[in-house]
């Protein structure tokens, strides 16, 4: 199993009522697929229904190790990675 601490910010943090969520996910699925950021997004929806709708929006991004990723479905996630839920930003 891969244990991940997911960081939540802004609306995501408020909806979840907590700044982080811990997820334990298999490194490889029954179908032999490696764990990707897209899988993490789906697992996060199930683990925290309060932010499911936010995570269903394509404007909510997941950052991996403090970087934006171009394609969640091809981004492999491993133990120790830092994942953050990034609602649409509003700095400035």
């Amino acid at each position, binding site marked *: 199993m891969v244990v991940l601490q997911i960081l939540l*910010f802004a609306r995501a943090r408020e909806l979840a009522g907590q700044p982080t969520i811990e997820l334990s996910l298999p490194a490889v699925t029954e179908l032999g697929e490696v764990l990707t950021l897209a899988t993490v997004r789906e697992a996060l929806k199930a683990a925290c229904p309060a932010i499911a709708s936010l995570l269903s929006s394509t404007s909510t991004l997941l950052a991996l190790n403090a970087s934006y990723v171009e394609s969640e479905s091809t981004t492999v996630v491993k133990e120790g990675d830092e994942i953050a839920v990034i609602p649409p930003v509003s700095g400035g």
Partner: protein
Amino acid sequence: MEAVHASSVQEGLEPVQAAATVSACSAEQPEQPAPCIGTLVTSGGRGQENMCMLTYERLDSSAIVDMVVEPCCGAASVFLGTTRNSFEGKEVVRLEYEAYVPMALKELDALCQGVRELHAVHRIAVFHRLGVVPVTEASVIIAVASPHRRAAMDACAWLIDGLKVRVPIWKKEVYADEAAAWKQNPEAGVGLFPSTK
């Protein structure tokens, strides 16, 4: 809106000094690793410094401008983003900002480096305030110096536009009736990966 406490005005006067005050790191978000809130993140060579900071302190525009001006530069362009007192007819009393600090600092530094490929600028300073920002106070100040004005002005505009697209900072508007709303920039996330658009 009461005036800012004298102590925070003093603390906000010298960003360079504030950067050296490591204690600011443990002020409100103790678990943040370095680089953290209150530290000045710098990159770039001599005269081409990129200086970025996230801080809970009041931003002092003249101190930030002083960080970028130098004898070879005939221009400094400054952008101040300030807290507006209304949104769609509702009275806004304050904004509250939060950031994904390590990523925000990384993205700010990347913007500073990116703008150098487009405009011939010298020193750049980008300061963003976090926490509560009362109406009329600055939430962000960008200062850019260049030998001639056009480069500094264009770079300053490019930097604030880029900040609003990609830097993970969020603001919550708090209204007079204490209702609140998380904002989102219209351009948030637009064109993050231009090669695929």
